[in-house]
């Protein structure tokens, strides 16, 4: 009963927003237009992958298929010829997994420790080594192949999975270390100092204080590395033998064959299939990713 008096007076709650306000039109409009730029190639790829070759030869890349066929997808996954084997992408799928999982884990583990050491534990020369790492981020991969092949040969691990994991770790190190270093630097120093005062050492602070607060940044690093390593082709074929070639080798064979008939529909399907793994990682970790690099995300 006492509510009745309030109804006639001050309305409660926020002022109802008009959906079509100028701000919203500008906002969503811009996003939609820019979104087109990103979405159109995917549309072309999907449409092409559902057409038969005669239709593609006619050349209308933007038109939807007159007759939808899923055969290119089946062919890409299981039947396309990639050399002697005609098993499509599936033959390399597990190889890619076997290569990606340890490489991602180890490269992130090492880079995070590096970043932590650089951010919180100053020692002579640390910055020099870090600068060299950053310099290393700019070196084109092809240039480093032969020296690394020779190095791995001398170490006796050329051609092994260990060798490949080490190579991925090396090349992921610069950017990841930078990422972790910046993140750990931005965490409140008081936490670190308090733990030191409590007598904790290098490793215990890392595991008990830093890591629990860093899940988001680890997610970012995981996404960067999974995308990079899953899509890698060069290292995967230079540092392994044919039984261990990753899926990208098959993708490349399907898409890039020069003296053969180009089946564009199969190529598109194959590309989308290969990209599904990093894409699904993006989907799953979407929200986490964004909160990852937030410098001041933690309130002390």
């Amino acid at each position, binding site marked *: 009963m006492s509510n009745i008096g309030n109804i006639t007076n001050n309305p409660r709650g926020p002022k109802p927003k008009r959906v079509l306000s100028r701000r919203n039109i500008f906002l969503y409009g811009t996003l939609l237009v820019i979104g087109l730029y990103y979405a159109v*190639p995917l549309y072309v790829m999907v449409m092409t992958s559902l057409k038969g070759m005669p239709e593609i030869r006619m050349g209308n890349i933007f038109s939807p298929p007159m007759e939808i066929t899923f055969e290119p997808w089946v062919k890409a996954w299981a039947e396309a010829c990639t050399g002697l084997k005609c098993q499509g992408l599936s033959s390399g799928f597990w190889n890619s997994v076997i290569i990606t999982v340890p490489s991602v884990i180890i490269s992130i583990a090492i880079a995070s420790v590096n970043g932590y050491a650089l951010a919180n534990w100053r020692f002579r020369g640390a910055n020099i080594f870090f600068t060299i790492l950053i310099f290393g981020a*700019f*070196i084109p991969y*092809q240039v480093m192949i032969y020296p690394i092949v020779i*190095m791995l040969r001398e170490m006796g691990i050329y051609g092994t999975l260990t060798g490949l994991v080490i190579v991925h770790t090396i090349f992921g190190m610069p950017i990841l270390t930078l990422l972790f270093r910046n993140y750990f630097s931005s965490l409140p120093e008081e936490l670190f100092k308090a733990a030191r005062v409590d007598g904790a050492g290098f490793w215990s602070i890392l595991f008990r204080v830093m890591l629990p607060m860093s899940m988001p940044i680890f997610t970012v690093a995981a996404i960067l590395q999974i995308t990079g390593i899953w899509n890698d082709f060069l290292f995967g074929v230079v540092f392994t033998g044919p039984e261990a070639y990753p899926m990208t080798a098959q993708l490349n064979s399907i898409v890039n064959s020069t003296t053969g008939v180009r089946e564009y529909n199969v190529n598109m399907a194959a590309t989308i299939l290969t990209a599904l793994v990093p894409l699904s990682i993006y989907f799953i970790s*979407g929200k986490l990713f964004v909160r990852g690099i937030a410098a*001041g995300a933690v309130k002390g």
Partner: protein
Amino acid sequence: MASGRPNFLFRNKTAKIAAIPMILTALFVFVGGTAWTVTYSFTKSGLLPKLKWVGFAQYDRLWNTKKWLVAIENLAIYGICMLILMFLIGFILAALIDQKVRFENTFRTVILYPYAMSFVVTGLVWQWILNPEFGLERIVRDLGWESFEFNPLYNSEIAIFGVLIAGLWQGSGLVMVLMLAGLRGIDQEIWKAARIDGIPTWKTYILIIIPMMRPVFITTLVIVTAGIVKVYDLIVAQTSGGPGISTEVPAKYVYDAMFTAQNLGQGFAASTMMLLTVVIVVIPWAILEFGGTKKSV
């Protein structure tokens, strides 16, 4: 502290041991590999590295080769445009999405998914879209604008911009997401305070927010620049360096010299020039960054 340990080598011992992989990598791989490359750039190596010294002959040939000069020019144009546009687009998109829009997940995914796709086919798709016969130009013409021309890839002058369009498409998603995360880390109180002080939104962004995002900007800058310097797959997939040599870039020059022309010496000379440039840029930055006090970032 025990007095028997004045030696600086033992301070922060655990940290140093933990950083051993970094130290080894930096020294053996990056420094060692670079030294090896520079050394062999003074040789006449063909398919295999050989110690047949020829002095500066490879460099002489390098700087007299039109393809190299075009490659450097292209990298400069591509690099500067990419940097500016990536940051602009990435930041603006991030700012827009940060406005608590509905369907944030969808927009973010649509903008980010290109990053997951390998260049090999995306280069081809953009080649199609930019093709005058059956791409964008024809669609717009069919819609009525008869004289619409949009054919960058077959025009030597502006072909590099066609590549730019595809490169931007592929990488701006990552920049947007990095910027978005940086924005999300800004305390809401800052926004409230700025609003109370009556500062217009755009000024808030430029004078307050962006400076606060310095660490994120630096990380993004390194990632984007490293990507630009190494750009290779995109060029090969989209234009093969063509028409003619108008979209050549240094990384492709190196690769072609090493593996197509089977002339390692020439490839190493080219990459030494690239590395020299990087050193010239990175060292002053490092001095600026690390010459200062603790917590510089």
